[in-house]
């Protein structure tokens, strides 16, 4: 899944005929000044200014300001741009036109195993959280078409009537078209408002697209955003750049404050290793994973990042018995990075724990074991030691 920020998300809705308020994503105060000179709506309407970054709870952080006139909006833009929030600096804000409205509704489309669910409710905004039972849905099976009769009974079921029911049915039809054609996995419009002109307008959008489908969407020129309420770190971005280039995969997510560094192989096994650390009361310093027989240099880059995590006490070089990832080759990358880190004065007092099997396991494990002679504090185990026992040993070690 790939999260898309509000601006490009709104852009996709517009593309499929859904009305949105006027909006502009701006990256500098000067740019906003220029925009305000040519756009009527910026001068005449009440405005909303929001930080346009992958951040959760923007309201609480004071990064959403509503009901502003142009002067106040300019001040808000100036204040937000460049503001530092922990790991992130705000580089973009989105300024949108406030829409006069009485009613707020909820609409969403979400991927399910059997197809897609369209969800709708007569209550929108924060109301919907406490009224989840009012959200009605219709399921459209994979490969089936959405019928008008299914739509009209859905909106009726949800409590819409008259003209608004017809408009909401039309809105959902467009939302479904957008969802299907844009390879979306989740699109939530909350709220959908009925403007004083009697038009349904999408005020906010949460959009998750299928990153794997990027090859057939040449117009997806926007970057994907981190999905966990913060921006990617420099190290994460560097590993992502490597991941995008190589056969196989390398992944890294940093978790500040932990002291157990993870360097396991395999998308499946890596999670069991993380589970084992948490189950023993340890604090993860990161999540990492390499798999699919990546080149040694890619594993080396990943290892360098892991070695430079602050305050780590252990590194868990775990892994199941590989099918085709060459243990000797990938360990070669890890060993290079270990040596480099040690030469740079890192890894002092860090214990390294290794468990692995797979093609060329004997040579790979022997090479790791030989690091003991170079002064590394390293323990090496083969397939006979159960998968996560090294975590138990690490957590028991002082």
């Amino acid at each position, binding site marked *: 899944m790939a999260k898309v920020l509000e601006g490009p998300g709104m852009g996709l809705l517009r593309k499929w005929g859904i009305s949105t308020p006027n909006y502009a994503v701006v990256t500098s105060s000067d740019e906003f000044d220029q925009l305000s000179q040519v756009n009527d709506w910026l001068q005449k309407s009440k405005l909303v200014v929001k930080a346009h970054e992958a951040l959760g709870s923007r309201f609480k952080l004071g990064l959403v300001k509503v009901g502003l006139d142009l002067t106040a909006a300019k001040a808000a833009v100036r204040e937000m741009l460049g503001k530092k929030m922990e790991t992130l600096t705000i580089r973009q804000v989105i300024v949108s036109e406030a829409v006069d409205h009485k009613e707020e509704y909820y609409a969403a489309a979400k991927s399910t195993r059997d197809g897609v669910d369209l969800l709708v409710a007569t209550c929108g905004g924060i109301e919907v959280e406490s009224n989840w039972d009012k959200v009605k849905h219709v399921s459209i099976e994979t490969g089936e078409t959405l019928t008008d009769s299914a739509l009209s009974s859905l909106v009726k079921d949800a409590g819409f009537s008259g003209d608004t029911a017809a408009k909401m049915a039309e809105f959902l039809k467009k939302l479904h078209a957008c969802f299907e054609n844009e390879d979306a996995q989740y699109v939530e419009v909350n709220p959908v408002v009925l403007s004083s002109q009697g038009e349904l307008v999408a005020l906010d959008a949460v959009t998750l697209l299928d990153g794997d489908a990027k090859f057939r969407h040449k117009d997806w020129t926007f970057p994907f955003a981190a999905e966990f309420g913060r921006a990617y770190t420099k190290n994460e971005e560097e590993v992502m750049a490597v991941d995008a280039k190589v056969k196989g995969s390398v992944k890294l997510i940093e978790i500040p404050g932990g002291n157990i560094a993870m360097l396991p192989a395999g*998308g499946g096994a890596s999670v069991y290793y993380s589970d084992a650390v948490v189950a023993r009361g340890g604090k993860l310093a990161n999540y990492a994973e390499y798999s699919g027989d990546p080149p040694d240099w890619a594993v080396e880059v990943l290892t360098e990042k892991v070695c430079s995590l602050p305050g780590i006490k252990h590194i868990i070089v775990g892994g199941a018995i590989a099918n085709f990832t060459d243990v000797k080759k990938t360990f070669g990358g890890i060993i290079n990075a270990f040596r480099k880190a040690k030469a740079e004065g890192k890894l002092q007092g860090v214990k390294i724990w290794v468990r692995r099997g797979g093609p060329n396991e004997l040579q790979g494990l022997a090479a790791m074991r030989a690091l003991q002679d170079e002064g590394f504090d390293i323990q090496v185990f083969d397939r006979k030691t159960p998968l996560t026992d090294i975590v138990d040993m690490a957590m028991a070690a002082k």
Partner: protein
Amino acid sequence: MSILATKDTHVVIQGGLAGVNAARRMAEFRYMIKQPLNVSAFVYPPDAGKTNEIICGTELVMIPIYKTVAEATANHPEINTSLVYIGADRAYAGTMEALNDSQIKTVSMITEGVPEKDAKLLGKHARKLGKTFNGPSSIGVVSAGECRLGVIGGAFDNLVACKLYRPGSFGVITKSGGLSNEIIWICSQFADGITTAIGIGGDAYPGTDYVSYLEMFENDPQTKAVVIVGEMGGDLEERAAEWYGAKKRRIKLLAVVSGFCQESLPKGMKFGHAGAKEGLKGEGSARAKSEALKKAGAIVPETFGALGPAIKATHEELLKSGQVKPIPDLAPADMPKLPKTVQESMKEGEVLVTPLIRSTISDDRGDEPLYQGYPASELINNGYDIPHIIGLLWDNRLVSKQEAEIIKRIIMLSADHGPCVSGALTTIIAACAGIGLSQAVAAGMIMIGPRFGGAVTDAGRWFKYAIDNKLSVDDFLVYMKKNVGPVPGIGHRVKSLKNPDKRVKELVGYVKSLNMATPHLDFALEVEKITAVKKDNLILNVDGTMAAVLVDIGFPVDSLNGFFILSRTIGMIGHWTDQKKQGSRLIRLFDYLVNYASPKRREVPPLK
């Protein structure tokens, strides 16, 4: 018995290099169980009409490549399964092609990064047709003692270590490729091994889920228990739990679910598998899944590490109740072994190979060439020069400084002789005809023979014959006239006593100035004295001079033409480059340079 991949499975592999690699792995498995390869065909349009070479034990089997699945199945009516190794952007169309083929009942997709929508459409289509679509992102399927689809199980040694040469009693279903192998290993060490292990792929919506495979295992009498390795996200584990709890099942179910760490991690964190993602409302957590499975009566160990002992306990129960019998282990000598390559056997000192060729001059196996054992870089750094390399490679010895100087002068004197001589002219004609460097130089080289530049060896041979047999000049000339003909190395087309060859004078003068014995050169000069009297141009030519000098410094007779060939190559390369630089056009001989001595135009007589 087993499911999905059986002894009756015959495969078409769709895709290129990764598919070929899978076929090789599958061939290793079939060799282990002493069965012929079950890959019948490949479908890969760029190579259609060719074959892929697959090593099966000690044999190489050629497997045909087709453009379409339909062609493959038409030519191989036994095919019932397709493995998809096509890139994510083309995988949908290729998989549809396989599903729509009436012969194919099972399609397993290895491709990763397939759009979710495509995977859902393929799954739906397969269900509609009553076929099995496994994957995407599947590591494969393996049934012990019967069939392997894909690279699941890893290297040959691992297949043997995991006892995959004979069936056990445990079925395995995992999302993760690496963990499938881990569980296969655990089942072989803590119990009697597996029947079938299936990688369903780590995507959000696998084409076929746990429930369908559990149903198949339930109907497979050989399988007594099934191990599921689940992960957070989606509802596959919940559905499996629901299926298991719905009624009394014959098979025992063991399960572990990963993702407990999620509870203490930033929300929405993306793990290795696309499917490993908790729902937006918290559904599909590892805890919820584990609870559901436990409630349904499955054995759910607290950690992955506890899975081994749980599998062991289950196996002991099965033994106790008589549902399974103990399977004796194979003696080490009876374990299947892959044939070794010649290199491997030699490394282990098991075989002696009679070499095809013998080389006494150089060795390329290190990080730089060794000439007669001397590293090229060290020769350079110790001041040695090209003539020394010639000495090492042509005569297996390091020549002296003085000898090197003579060789250098010989090369310098005979590097070129203008554009008119046979060799250069031929090279130029070739260059003008647009022929490439190596061919044009080779064309010039072909001219080197008895009449042009190629007399050095013969001259050396006969001068040496005379000296070795202590012949007088007169006896030598008589012998040559009777047995050989004109003396090689004597005579020149244009040079004569009055118009001497400066090169000969230069070389002779230099060699004679040195403090060295020159019996062959002296003899050759004596011969010239007599022949030049008979005829003005029967002088010692450059070939003869070089020959005599080189025999004097000890070069073997057979290497002597090499000095001319080597030197003149410099000139020929120069002529080719020269023409190329000028952009010379095709040339032909002017007809006035030809004496047309053939009959004049005349009537063609009627054909008889």
